[in-house]
């Protein structure tokens, strides 16, 4: 089990190096976040949107960023014919975990950017309880990545990849999104850290459940 760490890290490193070389996902995501924020700003204009609405909008942007960026890792393997090559190098689980870690780190980076720009540009939206906010961002990112990674593996094997991905992801991500939006609102309103305990529990159990299911199911998707 522990000798698998080398191969897992090797898969992860390959993903990072590939992304840094080609920058397909990074460029697209950066422009996506900037453009979407601009649209939101124009749409809201001078209106005073409530903290509920703005908490929700933040996660809408994050959801669509996830959809734009996290499927790349599996779709390119399928399209370029490098999938079978990988299959002959190591066990399926190694590949899944390596790509999952990559997706999670990528999503963290994107979300950091999104949150920073969001707080900067939407001046009437303030976070008062940063302890809740940071915890929620961390847990939410892991959960989003878990679901998105396994679904990306499924979508990579289908035909109409682009539009199918959000359609499959949204229903499965709803419990996570509801929980995370609610907690973000609490963070904006200045609740205490333990007030959001219910949400932390939901997010942790959600991530554990999805990750476990993914580990068990991945091989069925990956092998033709």
């Amino acid at each position, binding site marked *: 089990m522990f000798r698998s760490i080398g191969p897992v890290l090797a898969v992860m490193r390959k993903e990072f190096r590939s992304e840094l070389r080609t920058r397909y996902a990074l460029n697209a995501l950066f422009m996506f976040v900037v453009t979407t924020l601009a649209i939101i700003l124009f749409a809201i204009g001078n209106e005073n949107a409530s903290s509920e609405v703005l908490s929700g909008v933040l996660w809408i942007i994050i959801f669509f960023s996830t959809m734009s960026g996290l499927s790349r890792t599996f779709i390119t393997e399928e399209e370029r014919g490098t999938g079978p090559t990988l299959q002959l190098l190591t066990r399926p689980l190694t590949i899944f975990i390596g790509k999952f870690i990559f997706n999670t780190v990528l999503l963290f980076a994107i979300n950091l950017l999104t949150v920073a720009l969001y707080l900067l540009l939407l001046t009437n939206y303030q976070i008062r309880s940063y302890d809740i906010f940071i915890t929620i961002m961390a847990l939410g990112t892991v959960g989003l990545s878990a679901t998105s990674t396994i679904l990306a593996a*499924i979508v990579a*094997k289908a035909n*109409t990849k682009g539009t199918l991905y959000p359609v499959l992801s949204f229903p*499965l991500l709803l419990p996570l999104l509801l*929980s995370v939006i609610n907690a973000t609102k609490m963070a904006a309103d200045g609740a205490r850290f333990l007030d959001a305990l219910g949400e932390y529990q939901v997010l942790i159990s959600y991530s554990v*459940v*999805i990750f476990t299911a993914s580990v068990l199911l991945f091989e069925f998707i990956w092998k033709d």
Partner: protein
Amino acid sequence: MDMTLLKFLLFFWLAGVILAAFAFPIVPSPRHWNEFPVIPGLEDKARILFFHVPMSWTAVVAFIISMISAIRYLVRKNGNDDIVSAASAGLGLLFCVLATVTGSLWAKFNWGSFWNWDPRETSIAILLLIYGAYFALRSAIDGEEKRAMLCAVYAILAGVTMPFFIFIVPRIVASLHPEPIVNSQGKIHMNPTMLTVFLASLAGFTALYFWMLRLRIRTMKAEILSLARADAA
């Protein structure tokens, strides 16, 4: 078992349920066996209970069966399991649409608008989205084995998130759903007549679902056979 006999039995059972649901009078203090009590705030509109809840229940049962067949497919790789899974999902979609529509009607008559973001309403809509996603996936894959495999995996993933809907969603938004039926202690506080008709309806719709499932599986298998013959010719 003679299927024709069962078919007629089911027909009369459901006919009886529908009749009872609409014809039994609603009186303030029921004294006869065929009278329903008045539920304050609902009155005549309570009749939809006999249809809406069984349909929702059936939609969930269909989903669970779809998921169990999916697991069996992954274990045994037998094409029949995939057929059951898809057939059940199709029926589940149908009952889910019916449940959402009857629920919306009730919402309109009771609270004035078709949609209220009540958690149960939301849950049934989410189930609808899951069914829709399942069929979107199904139509996007060439190759029977791959299609069966990927749909089975998705059904299981969706099934695994179900508990979160049932338990978590209601926590977040205060419920508009009436709680005359099952309260927190799990006791059933329904008038015996209503309870009888309700349970009869539940049983009837479940039986209807299983009968339709059988038919659908036979149809799908026949389709596959005729396609195979066309290929061979």
